[in-house]
C-alpha cells in the first residue's frame, strides 16, 4: 500500500515536472507572471511528492518488505535499523531517488528564494532544473524503479553489501550527491542566462554560495570515501585511482577551477566565456562520473553497482553537451570581455595559470581513465592504467598547483610589486628549503616527495603570514579611523571580519595539511608475518605481541580475530584486534582492520589469515602523517563557514535604496 503510494507519487512528480516545463515556456512566451508562479509552486509539489516516494522506500526497508525487489536485494531482516535506513542509497535505484530528492529540494529552494531577484533568468533556470528532474524521474518510474515489486516475495533479503556497513560509507554517497547536485544550480543559472541572453555577472554573484556549497560537499564526500577505503578495504591505502574515484575527482578539479575563475569575472569582468565552459564541463563531468560508476564500462572495485543504465546517462550527457555548447556558441558575441589590462605578474594572471593547471589535471585524469578504451580501439591492445601511472604523471602538476596556491595570495590585482613579492617570499622559501634538504640527505626519498612536501611547507608559511597580516591590517585601519574598540570588540572583529579572505586562506591551509599527509605515504612501511600465541614481533618502533584468538558478535556479524598487544619501550600502549567478520548474508568473510592512530603515524594491522595451527598471518602497515589528510576536514569546515559568511558587495542591501535584494 505505502509502496504503491510512493510509486504513484513518483509518477505524479514526473507529470508535474513536465507540466512545469511547459508552463514555464508558455509563461516566458506570454510574459505571464501567473504561469511562472504556477511553475514555481509546482516545484514545491514535486519536492513533496519525491519526499513521499523516498519515505515509502525507507518504510519498505524498515519493515523488511521484500516484495520490493530493491529492498530484497539490499537488505535483510538481521540488518541493524540504522543501516536499513541508509541502505536506501546502498544500491543504484535508491541512490537515484536520493539524488532526485536533493535536486527537488534545491529546485524548490531556488524557486522560492529568488522570487524577487533574477526575475529575468529565473524561468529559464527553472526550465533547466526541471529538465534534469524530468530525466531522473523518467529513470525512476521506468528502468530503475526502486519501488518495483516482485512476487512471490522472498522470505529473506540478500543483505546489504558488508562493505557498505560502515559509517564512512553511510555519509560518503549523500555528501557526494549534495556536491554534484549543488553544481547543477550554477549550471542551471548559467544556461538560464544564456537562454535569456542576459549575460551580466549576476548569475555568478547569485550562485557564489551554491558553488561553495557544492565544492565543500564534494570535497567532504571524497575524503569520506578515502577514509572508508582506508579502514574498510584493508590494503593500507586510501586512494587507488580507480575509475570511480577518478569520476568524482574530475568534477572536483573543474569545479575548483570554476570557484577561482568566477572571482576574476566578479572583480575584473574577464573570463566570461571561460566560466561558462567550466561550469558546463563540471556538470557534464558529474554526469560522466555517474556514467562510469553505473555502466561498468571501465574496471572498477565499485562494480557491484553495474547496471544497464549506462546508455541513458550517456545520452543525457550528449544532450547536455550539445544543448549548452550550442547555446554558448550562439551567444558568444554577448560574452566578449572588455579587455582589462594587467601586468604580467598579477593576481588575475595567476588565476589564469591556476585554471590551466586544474583543467590539465582534469584532462590527465580523464585521459588516463578512458585511455584503455582508446588503446583497444586504435591499437587493439589491452592496457592497465593504474596508480603508478597517475602518481608519476600527476605529481609535477600537483607541485605546480601548490606553489601557485601559496603565491597567488601575495599578488595584487592588475599589478604587483616584484620587489615586495620577493621580500615576502624569501624567508618562507629558505625556511622550506632547509628542512627539505635535511630530509633529502637523511632519507633520500623520491624527488616528487621533496618538491611536493617542500612546496606544501612553503605555501603553509605564506598562508599563515597572510592570515596574520590580514588581522594586522585590520588593527591598523581601525587605529587610523580613530576607532576606539575595546579588547573584546577587537577580538570579535578580528574573528568575524574579512570572511572571504580568511575562508580562502583557511581552506588553502587544509590543502597544505592534505598535501603533507599525502607526502607521508612516501615513508610508508609494511610487512607481513605469521606468528603464534605468546610470540612477538617488532615492527618499526613497536613490538607486537599475539595475546590470543578471540571471537565475538558485533551487529549482525560474527567476528573472529587476534588480540594483539602493542608495546613500545616495554609499555603496553594498546590492544588491537583485527578481525575477520562473517556476515550471514555473505559467503566470504570481510577483513576488518585495527588501527592505532597518532599524530605522527598510524599503526595499521589487517588480518590476512587465521591458520589451522592457531597462528595468524598479519599485514602490518605504518602510515606516517596520514592523519593530516583527515585533519584537513577541520580546515575545510572552518574555511567554508567563513567563505559562506561573505556576501558580494554588489548584492548587499543598500541602506535607503529601494531595490530589495534577497539574493543568497
Amino acid at each position, binding site marked *: 500500500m505505502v509502496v504503491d503510494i510512493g510509486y504513484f507519487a513518483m509518477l505524479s512528480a514526473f507529470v508535474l515536472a513536465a507540466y512545469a516545463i511547459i508552463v514555464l515556456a508558455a509563461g516566458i512566451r506570454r510574459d505571464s507572471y501567473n504561469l511562472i508562479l504556477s511553475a514555481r509552486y509546482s516545484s514545491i509539489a514535486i519536492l513533496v511528492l519525491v519526499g513521499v516516494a523516498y519515505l515509502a522506500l525507507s518504510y519498505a526497508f524498515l519493515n523488511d518488505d521484500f516484495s520490493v525487489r530493491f529492498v530484497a536485494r539490499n537488505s535483510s531482516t538481521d540488518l541493524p535499523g540504522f543501516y536499513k535506513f541508509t541502505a536506501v542509497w546502498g544500491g543504484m535505484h535508491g541512490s537515484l531517488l536520493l539524488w532526485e530528492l536533493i535536486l527537488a529540494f534545491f529546485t524548490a529552494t531556488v524557486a522560492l528564494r529568488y522570487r524577487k531577484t533574477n526575475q529575468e533568468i529565473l524561468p529559464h533556470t527553472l526550465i533547466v532544473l526541471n529538465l534534469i528532474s524530468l530525466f531522473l524521474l523518467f529513470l525512476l518510474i521506468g528502468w530503475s524503479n526502486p519501488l518495483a515489486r516482485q512476487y512471490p516475495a522472498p522470505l529473506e533479503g540478500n543483505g546489504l553489501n558488508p562493505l557498505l556497513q560502515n559509517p564512512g560509507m553511510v555519509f560518503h554517497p549523500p555528501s557526494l550527491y549534495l556536491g554534484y547536485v549543488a553544481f547543477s544550480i550554477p549550471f542551471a543559472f548559467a544556461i538560464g542566462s544564456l537562454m535569456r541572453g542576459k549575460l551580466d555577472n549576476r548569475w555568478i554573484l547569485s550562485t557564489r554560495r551554491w558553488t561553495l556549497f557544492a565544492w565543500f560537499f564534494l570535497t567532504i564526500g571524497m575524503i569520506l570515501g578515502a577514509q572508508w577505503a582506508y579502514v574498510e578495504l584493508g590494503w593500507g591505502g586510501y586512494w587507488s585511482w580507480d575509475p570511480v574515484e577518478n569520476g568524482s575527482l574530475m568534477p572536483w578539479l573543474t569545479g575548483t577551477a570554476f570557484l577561482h575563475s568566477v572571482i576574476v569575472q566578479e572583480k575584473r569582468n574577464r573570463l566570461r*566565456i571561460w566560466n561558462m565552459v567550466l561550469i558546463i564541463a563540471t556538470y557534464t563531468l558529474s554526469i560522466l562520473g555517474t*556514467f562510469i560508476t553505473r555502466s561498468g*564500462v*571501465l574496471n572498477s572495485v565499485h562494480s557491484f553497482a553495474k547496471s544497464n543504465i*549506462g546508455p541513458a546517462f*550517456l545520452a543525457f550527457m550528449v544532450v547536455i553537451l550539445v544543448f549548452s555548447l550550442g547555446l554558448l556558441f550562439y551567444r*558568444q558575441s554577448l560574452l566578449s570581455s572588455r579587455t582589462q589590462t594587467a601586468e604580467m605578474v598579477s593576481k588575475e594572471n595567476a588565476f589564469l595559470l591556476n585554471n590551466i593547471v586544474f583543467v590539465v589535471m582534469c584532462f590527465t585524469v580523464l585521459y588516463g581513465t*578512458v585511455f584503455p578504451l582508446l588503446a*583497444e*580501439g586504435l591499437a587493439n591492445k589491452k592496457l592497465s592504467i593504474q596508480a603508478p601511472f597517475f602518481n608519476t604523471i600527476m605529481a609535477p602538476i600537483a607541485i605546480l598547483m601548490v606553489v601557485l596556491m601559496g603565491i597567488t595570495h601575495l599578488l595584487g590585482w592588475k599589478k604587483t610589486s616584484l620587489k615586495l613579492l620577493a621580500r615576502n617570499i624569501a624567508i618562507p622559501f629558505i625556511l622550506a628549503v632547509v628542512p627539505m634538504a635535511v630530509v633529502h640527505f637523511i632519507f633520500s626519498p623520491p624527488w616528487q616527495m621533496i618538491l611536493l612536501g617542500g612546496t606544501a611547507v612553503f605555501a603553509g608559511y605564506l598562508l599563515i603570514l597572510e592570515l596574520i597580516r590580514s588581522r594586522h591590517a585590520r588593527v591598523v585601519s581601525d587605529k587610523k579611523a580613530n576607532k576606539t574598540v575595546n579588547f573584546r570588540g577587537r577580538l570579535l572583529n578580528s574573528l568575524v571580519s574579512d570572511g572571504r579572505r580568511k575562508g580562502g586562506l583557511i581552506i588553502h591551509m587544509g590543502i597544505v595539511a592534505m598535501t603533507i599527509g599525502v607526502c607521508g605515504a612516501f615513508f610508508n612501511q609494511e610487512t607481513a608475518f605469521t606468528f603464534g600465541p605468546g610470540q612477538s614481533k617488532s615492527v618499526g618502533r613497536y613490538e607486537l605481541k599475539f595475546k590470543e584468538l578471540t571471537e565475538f558478535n558485533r551487529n549482525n556479524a560474527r567476528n573472529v580475530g587476534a588480540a594483539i598487544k602493542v608495546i613500545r619501550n616495554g609499555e603496553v600502549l594498546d590492544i588491537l584486534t583485527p578481525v575477520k567478520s562473517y556476515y550471514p548474508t555473505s559467503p566470504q568473510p570481510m577483513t576488518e582492520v585495527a588501527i592505532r592512530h597518532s599524530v605522527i603515524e598510524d599503526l595499521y594491522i589487517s588480518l590476512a589469515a587465521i591458520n589451522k595451527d592457531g597462528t595468524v598471518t598479519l599485514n602490518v602497515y605504518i602510515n606516517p602523517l596520514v592523519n593530516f589528510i583527515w585533519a584537513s576536514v577541520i580546515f575545510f569546515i572552518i574555511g567554508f563557514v567563513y567563505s559562506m559568511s561573505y556576501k558580494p558587495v554588489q548584492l548587499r542591501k543598500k541602506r535607503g535604496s529601494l531595490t530589495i535584494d534577497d539574493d543568497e
Partner: protein
Amino acid sequence: MTMNRKLYFLLGISFTVGLVIVLIYGLFYSSRPGEIPSAQLQKTAKSFQATTFDGQAISLEQFRGQPVILNFWASWCVSCRQEAHIIEAAWQQYGDEGAVFIGIAINDTREASLGFIRRYGKTYLLAPDDKTGTISLDYGVTAVPETFLIDKTGVITEKVLGAISRKTIDSFLSGQL
C-alpha cells in the same frame, strides 16, 4: 581574437566529440573489462610437468601430435561446476579419437579437489598445480575456469574465459581430428 576564438571552439568541440565517441565505443563495442586476451596465442604452449591425482606423471610434450584441451579449475569456483559435465562428456566422446583432456587444479587443497572430481565423475587427466602455481603462472591464468586449446603442433590457438561450451570444443576438435 575572433580567429583564435573560432579555433578554440573547434578544439573544444572536437575534444568533446572524441570523448563521446570513445565512450560509445566503450559502451557498445569494446570487450568486457575482464576479457583478457592471452599473450601466448599462436605461440608454442609452454611445456610443463605434473603428477595426476592418481600418481601418473605427465608432461605436455608427450602429447605432441594430439590436440590438447588444457583446463584450469578449482573446487571453490562456481563456473567450474557449470562446465564439469560438459568437459567430461566431451572427453568420453573424443578421448578415443586421440584428443587429450587435462585439468589443472589451482589454489586448491588436495582433499577438496578429490571431492570435486568424485562429485562430478571426472575421469580425464587431472592434476594439481604445484604450491606456487607454476603452471598457471606460465599460462598467464587470470581467473578460473580458463581453458587453453592447443593444436597438434603444440601451438595455443585459443583461450576460453569462463565456463567452456560444448560448441567450442566441438569446433576446435573437428579441425584437429
